[in-house]
């Protein structure tokens, strides 16, 4: 891959900056993937050209290369994703589609209309010009990022579509990361009176550090005081639907897992909720407590201390 950049661009070693630029433009016109969408081999060739140009268009880099300090691979960068990858039909470029002629039919519609005889092709009189060709419009694809709590409770989002009216997206409670919502009839218009396509919205759920989702269940860590850990007691646990009171049993150690039934994520099928699992973390008092220190200093595990001493 580290061919001589001068050879790659087809210029002499004494070429001026302007000559190098000209040579690059000529080659880029033929090999830039976005200027040659149909040429699948263009990308590999263009990578070499771009690398050579990056090296030789920078006077300092070029001088270092000429002195033999660096080789041609020094300027290699990972190739970006070219626009043609999206424009050729992958999700994401919907906004730039079909809008070439603001008035009237798109280019694609023209071709299909001609193919099926409307507007009189060469053999239109025979070709069933009366037949009405209907075709459903294209789907449009979007990505939508929502906070975890909104995925839990559901909600509404307004999406301003680049080529149409604002979309009201209803987020169903319990929606999952990667799930695709289909808004029927909100895609591009159909041909010949055919129905609109759909809008497909892929949901990305932002993780919430407090609530880790595993299947339908939510996992939470809850710090508790030393006294609650030893004696047990009532604590308040944050859940996505608000704080909930929970009983901690005596001698609950760090790592003890308690279950809050039905406080997990709304299930995708069959209704109901998963559970919330609460992992306890015992926290020593902060700042350090002198009395506790004194007690532990005289405490021998397994032996009863002198109860009520000093009271």
């Amino acid at each position, binding site marked *: 891959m580290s061919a001589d950049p001068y050879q790659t661009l087809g210029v002499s070693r004494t070429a001026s900056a302007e000559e190098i630029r000209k040579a690059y433009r000529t080659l880029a016109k033929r090999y830039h993937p976005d200027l040659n969408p149909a040429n699948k081999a263009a990308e590999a060739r263009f990578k070499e050209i771009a690398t050579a140009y990056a090296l030789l268009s920078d006077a300092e880099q070029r001088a270092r290369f000429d002195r033999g300090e660096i080789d041609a691979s020094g300027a290699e960068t990972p190739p970006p*994703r070219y626009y043609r*990858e999206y424009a050729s039909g992958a999700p994401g470029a919907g906004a*730039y589609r079909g809008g070439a002629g603001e008035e009237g039919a798109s280019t694609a519609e023209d071709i299909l209309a001609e193919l099926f005889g409307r507007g009189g092709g060469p053999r239109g009189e025979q070709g069933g010009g009366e037949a009405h060709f209907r075709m459903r419009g294209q789907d449009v694809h979007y*990505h939508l990022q929502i906070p975890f709590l909104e995925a839990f409770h559901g909600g509404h989002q307004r*999406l301003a579509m680049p080529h149409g009216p604002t979309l009201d997206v209803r987020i169903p409670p319990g929606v999952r990361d990667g799930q695709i919502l289909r808004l029927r009839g909100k895609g591009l218009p159909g041909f010949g009176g055919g129905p609109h396509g759909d809008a497909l919205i892929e949901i990305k759920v932002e993780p919430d550090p407090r609530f880790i989702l595993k299947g339908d269940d939510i996992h939470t860590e809850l710090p508790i005081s030393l006294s609650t850990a030893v004696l047990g007691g009532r604590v308040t646990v944050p859940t996505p639907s608000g704080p909930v009171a929970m009983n901690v049993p005596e001698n609950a150690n760090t790592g003890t897992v308690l279950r809050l039934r039905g406080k997990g994520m709304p299930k995708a099928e069959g209704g109901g909720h998963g559970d919330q699992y609460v992992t306890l973390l015992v926290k020593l008092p902060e700042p350090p407590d002198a009395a506790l220190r004194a007690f532990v200093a005289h405490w021998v595990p397994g032996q009863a201390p002198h109860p009520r001493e000093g009271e």
Partner: protein
Amino acid sequence: MTSTEEFLITLRLAPATLALWIENGWLKPLEVSGARQFQPADLARARLIRTLAEDFAVNEAGIDLFLHLLDQMHDLHRALHGLAVVAQNLPPETREVLRLQLAAHFQRPEESSDG
């Protein structure tokens, strides 16, 4: 999804430049609850616009014209690709007729009838 700030940093673009590109209709980011969100396609398209402006020294009017034609070309590509997919699913005999007719058409582009 990329926010406006990330987008500007990734492409090393001035806010005024981005504003111009959007105003010209070259980029059409989504708007979610009032905030712009850029998709990977917007990023790739912006990179192409920058290549045209910087490497090819195309001016504003030229880029406008270029993108207008580029969008039409991709429309055509998709239409042809759609036809190809449909043709692949036709019965073999129909496909053969299609192939022969197409070959004849491109051999004699001026003739409209095969007599």
